[in-house]
């Protein structure tokens, strides 16, 4: 066999192999890097070069003015798991005095008779965040907002420390505790709902998630409905809104009744 030269366009195998490979690579690049990105209405590309950069995955810093600003106030409190976990006796004392203003709704010992939330034994970080949100307008309530508007940061720290210091509500019902509902223990993975217990105690407690044991079922239900409807939106990154929107009315009832019965 005469050794014909391989790497020349006169060799049909070389010409065909190279031609096919280049045309397939170039064709898929044209489609993938230019045509398809330009066909995506959501990408808002300014031209061909922009399309190529976008499809190649070139990281871009988003200009600040492009970011969509929400038309409502968002929470400004940064939650960490260490936040307000070291109580201070002076702060608790000051908080006890300030709390007299709160007693008419939240009870003299932080336990409410009026379906207002029980604050006794609540994590200090949680109470502090909610007061802040009422003050900033991230959370709105006809009764709470005027109270919070004039509070200083120190007042809020003190109140939070005082309520965290009080003992939690004991189990209030004499009938046997209901079994934990599925939504609390398993959540609903197919609807992207994590188990309630994975943040609110029993399984795990996450920074910023309130203790719900002994809380009024009416209150819990009202808050879940407010999250679902968007009336309340001071949850971090829509965590609770995303969950509440996916929950059925029965699941909301079951979770509320379960937590009310818990100590």
């Amino acid at each position, binding site marked *: *066999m*005469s*050794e*014909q030269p*391989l*790497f020349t366009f006169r*060799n049909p*195998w*070389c010409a065909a*192999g*190279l031609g096919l*490979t280049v045309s*397939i*690579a170039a*064709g*898929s*690049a044209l*489609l*993938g*890097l230019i045509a*398809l*990105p330009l066909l995506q209405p959501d990408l808002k590309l300014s031209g061909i070069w922009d399309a*190529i950069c*976008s*499809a*190649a*995955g*070139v*990281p871009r810093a988003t200009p600040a003015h492009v970011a969509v600003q929400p038309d409502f106030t968002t929470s400004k409190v940064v939650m960490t798991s260490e936040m307000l976990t070291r109580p201070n006796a002076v702060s608790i004392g000051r908080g006890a005095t300030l709390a007299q203003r709160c007693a008419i709704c939240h009870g003299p010992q932080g336990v409410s008779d009026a379906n207002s939330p029980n604050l006794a034994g609540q994590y200090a970080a949680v109470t502090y965040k909610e007061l802040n949100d009422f003050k900033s307008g991230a959370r709105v309530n006809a009764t709470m907002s005027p109270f919070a508007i004039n509070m200083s940061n120190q007042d809020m720290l003190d109140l939070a420390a005082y309520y965290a210091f009080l003992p939690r509500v004991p189990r209030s019902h004499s009938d046997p505790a209901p079994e934990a509902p*599925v939504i609390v223990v*398993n959540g*609903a*993975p*197919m609807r992207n709902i994590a188990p309630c217990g994975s943040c609110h105690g029993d399984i795990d407690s996450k920074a910023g998630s309130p203790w719900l044991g002994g809380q009024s079922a009416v209150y819990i239900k009202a808050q879940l409905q407010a999250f679902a409807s968007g009336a309340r939106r001071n949850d971090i990154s829509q965590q609770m809104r995303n969950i509440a929107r996916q929950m059925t009315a029965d699941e909301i009832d079951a979770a509320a009744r379960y937590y009310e019965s818990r100590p």
Partner: protein
Amino acid sequence: MLTNKRLILAHFWLAFAVFGLAILLGAWQMFVRSPLNVWHFNPELYYRSVTAHGSAMGYVFPTLIAMGFGYAITEATLERPIIGRRWAWAGFLLVAVGAVVALVPVSMGLASVLYTFYPPMVGNPFYYIGVVMVVVGSWIWVALTSINLVAWKRANPGRPVPLAMYANTAGSLLWGWTAVGAALEILFQILPVALGLTSTIDAGLARVFFSWTLHAIVYFWLMPTYIAYYTIFPRAIGGRLYSDPMARISFILFLVVSMPIGIHHLFTDPQVGAGFKFMQSVITGLVALPTLLTVFTICASAEIASRLRGGKGAFGWVGALPWKNPIMLATALSLVMLGFGGAGGLINMSYQLDSSIHNTQWVTGHFHLIFGGAIVIMYFAIAYDLWPQLTGRAMQSFGLMRVQLWLWFVGMIVTTFPWHYVGILGMPRRMAFYDYNNPAVSPQAFSVTMSVFGGLILVVSAALFFVVLIRGQMAPKQEQEPYRFAVAVHQPIRLPVALNSFGLWLALMVGLTLVNYGYPIAQLMALKETSVPAVYVGAAR
């Protein structure tokens, strides 16, 4: 003519010994995460077992088969003892020692990172060192294959390289290049962390490097199977190969397009641009081409054999095939599994369809059907075909072989079909525990249980396989005819240089790799702040 029979036999026996241990782990894993097991074990043991099963089945077993079969092909087709016999033994020892070095830390629970490494998880350095030893051992085989081919070509200028040797070299070159990705990942990214030299790792870049290896490794596993289709099957059923150039073109296509496509494993990864995902998706689609060519050529070869035996009619010839011949049976069953597995693969490679099954049990089902099914059943066939040559003793248990192959086929179907199905239901992969009491998970319980029984059938089949091999090893000595591969209907006397060499195809393979991987890798290397803290597995907490 096979000269270094002990070398080849050592590769096969070690490969099958590793396979025998790993299949037991696999069956145990099927069981413990099924509803049949009451939840009472440490989930860490599951990940330990998955790591050992994957590393043994993915890295050690097929590599040894490719090496052993490769040496057999080199000696049988070039008709002379291999050059570099000592190097070959050194490569074998490296693989053997590497396997032990890797699997000791895994069994101690110090490297439960799964065989795909998954940075930022980082395990004991000896695990990675062991894997590197296995790869380096196999690279010796890669080098020896080319050295032997070049030496033969010098001695036989202008003669066509025998098809089996051409395909074997294509497989070795594919492996040599595709293993580079994981080697870069281990040497430059993971080992420095595992050895404590640094504590952060660019997990996104590591995944891109691994995808370089992870897809084409499947085609490396597939090579011995395809070589057996083309060069053992037609001879074993008393026919001829339909087309020699068609076979070469298939292997060339594998060499060029099967490597720069691994990013289809990263369709949901944020660090790679959508455009590159699309480009690799297109080229992944091209890999169907050599497989379709192969199915056509093999079916045509079967028809030739059947008509020589008196087969008639448009489809009547199928009945006239020698169905009692284990190679016939294995090839047919392998092609059926390849058909189903390939159809599933088309879903995995499609950028859009993939999102419905990405990271679900569908994927695990898919690669078990392709690798464990279509590929491994031909490894059995290769062993059955080569054993008399290697041992000098005739195989006698043909009935047992047929039972073994049927059991493997049935077991693999019963294992993987439900596995695919639960993937569609959304069952995630790589989990030790599923709560089948959960109303959302309970519909999967029946299918998962079925899979367990499939796994048990596979264990029985593997046990029968060992019985056949050991009986073959104990049969009386017998004079064997020289080993030969299938000849084509038109056996080539002259070939275009492109079909007799690799230069052009290697250039295209490397070029396509640069086009498809160059930018994503360069960008990730240039970006700052892409490293994350390593998560040490098995370290004291």
